[in-house]
């Protein structure tokens, strides 16, 4: 297991290097000059030259790239043009919001999708199956940003029950410790802030998780259907076990492997989805930061965020592969 993971990690390094090269050159070669965008059109040539020198933009692209790789290997992604702070710090300040949102989206999706999928798969062609399948199809066909807008329109605009932007109401939350508002508030036993945080996170997390919900539900259902035909399920029934026990103990535990894969694969989509959902809900996470950085042509920041997302995506896939062994004892690396 350990040697397998080390092997996989070693295999990822060249891929990450190639990706960093691709992202770096694409972003740097993109039209639009960060000096003009940040300093304004009326800046004189001397100031622009000075800014270019300070940001290292006066050097050839390959020199810039080599410098970037050398620094990045030591965990330094350079300084953001726009925020004049190390990229790492800027990302660190925004990442908890995105992680909190993603975790909530996964929780909402799994809590609804897995029981629904198991139920639908255990009773094919019943009303619950039809309902679940339709729901799943709606989930995968729904563009997350439209759902986000419609949720705002309905729940916040017409019914006026939930807040539509930001992470918390000003002044309710206590001092920031980890950046995870809900976690911090729970630690500080500030229940008003916990509730406030939950009301803020619910709509964006639902919009973000809907797609995953649909996919999870479909995969769970088809996986359950498949396992239901296995011999050991027949055996379990023949032993006289109640159908409830057969489904939850024998079928579900074996049907969950593809579900885990899908959760892993969908995390990438979730990360991408967060870029849009964060923009709609003015959620101060790293996704909306990416769009801001991109519009300002803040090269180091864009490269930093894209690399962070890619790293996370690759790491998640590794973890998923490791999880297989936990869920299915037959798999040994």
């Amino acid at each position: 297991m350990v040697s397998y993971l080390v092997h996989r990690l070693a295999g990822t390094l060249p891929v990450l290097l190639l990706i960093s090269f691709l992202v770096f050159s694409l972003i740097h070669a993109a039209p639009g000059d960060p000096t003009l965008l940040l300093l304004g059109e009326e800046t004189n040539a001397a100031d622009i030259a000075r800014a270019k020198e300070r940001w290292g933009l006066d050097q050839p692209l390959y020199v810039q790239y080599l410098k970037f790789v050398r620094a990045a290997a030591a965990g330094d992604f350079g300084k953001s043009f726009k925020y004049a702070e190390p990229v790492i710090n800027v990302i660190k300040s925004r990442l908890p919001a995105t992680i909190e949102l993603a975790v909530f989206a996964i929780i909402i999706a799994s809590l609804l999708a897995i029981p629904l999928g198991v139920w639908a798969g255990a009773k094919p062609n019943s009303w619950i199956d039809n309902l679940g399948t339709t729901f799943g199809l709606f989930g995968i066909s729904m563009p997350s940003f439209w759902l986000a807008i419609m949720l705002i329109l309905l729940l916040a605009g017409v019914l006026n029950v939930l807040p539509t932007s930001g992470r918390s109401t000003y002044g309710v939350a206590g001092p920031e410790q980890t950046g995870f508002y809900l976690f911090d508030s729970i630690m500080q036993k500030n229940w008003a802030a916990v509730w406030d945080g939950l009301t803020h996170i619910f709509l964006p997390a639902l919009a973000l998780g809907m797609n995953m919900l649909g996919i999870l539900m479909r995969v769970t259902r088809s996986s359950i259907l498949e396992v239901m035909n296995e011999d050991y399920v027949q055996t379990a029934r023949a032993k006289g076990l109640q159908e409830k026990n057969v489904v939850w103990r024998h079928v579900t535990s074996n049907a969950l492997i593809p579900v885990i894969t899908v959760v892993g694969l969908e995390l990438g989509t979730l990360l991408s989805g967060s870029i849009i959902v964060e923009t709609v809900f003015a959620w101060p996470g790293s996704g909306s930061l990416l769009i801001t950085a991109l519009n300002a042509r803040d090269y180091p920041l864009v490269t930093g965020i894209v690399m962070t997302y890619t790293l996370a995506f690759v790491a998640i896939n590794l973890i998923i592969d490791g999880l297989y062994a936990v869920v299915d004892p037959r798999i040994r690396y």
Partner: protein
Amino acid sequence: MVFMQSLTLESATEKSVVWPRLLPRLHVKAFTGGVIVLLFIIIGIIGPSIAPFDPNKQELTAMMKAPAGIGAPHSLGTDNLGRDILSRVIYGSRVSLLVAFAVVFVSGFIGIALGAISGFFGGKVDFLIQKLVEVVWAFPPLLLGITIMAFLGQGLFNLILALVAQRWIPYCRVVRGQTLSLRNRDFVTAAQCLGASNRQIITRHIIPNLIQTSLVIGTFAMASSIIAEASLSFLGVGVPPEIPTWGTMLADARIYISTAWWLPLFPGLCIFVTVLGINLLGDALRDILDPRLKRSGAKI
């Protein structure tokens, strides 16, 4: 023994009971999906002749008109610049249609070709192609599109290119796997013995066997391209703002959510219904053509 037999017999009869129930459901799916997709294609093609107004014509005396119902001049209302929503939605379908088909065909062509080559030849070629697959696949989906669009700039052609960049991968992976097993089949050996060249074997004998699976992948890729096009346009890195698309309409509507519900409702509904139709058709196609894809089909 008798007990076991009765068990298998029972499960056999169970299956035969399920089938007739399953079939009509399949037809409903295929029919509903087919009708939606057909409508989408027809509206996309004949759009200009049925749209009541020029989609970009600004009528400043008729700004922010609420939907007036069928028969009225602006049946779906107008936006903040007095542009007719119905006409814009109809013109928007053209962009989605064009993007969806172009992306599916181009990425299908690239993916099938590379997958077949990769699986058939193996060795170094396979290694290189699979490394490329690994690199592209390591990007979170939308992120690669955003990065490429930042580089290429807004534009319809650029958008198609950015979407193709990642959507050839599913074809390539599935086709490679199938080619690996097809390569050793008797009919390929027979063709080889008859002196067929590698190119002939791939184009005449291998690829025809991959069409069904690719068709299923293509349907799901079409659904995801429509959403991706709308997402990128929504973020302002897709098509230029002067071309009406469902995504740009939603982006424009964002500021007016609280005052004009019809602005975000109709373009979004179009995306949703179209994608739903394509997914329904894809589901039905998959069940009919290639049930093996059932599990992997979830993520294409």
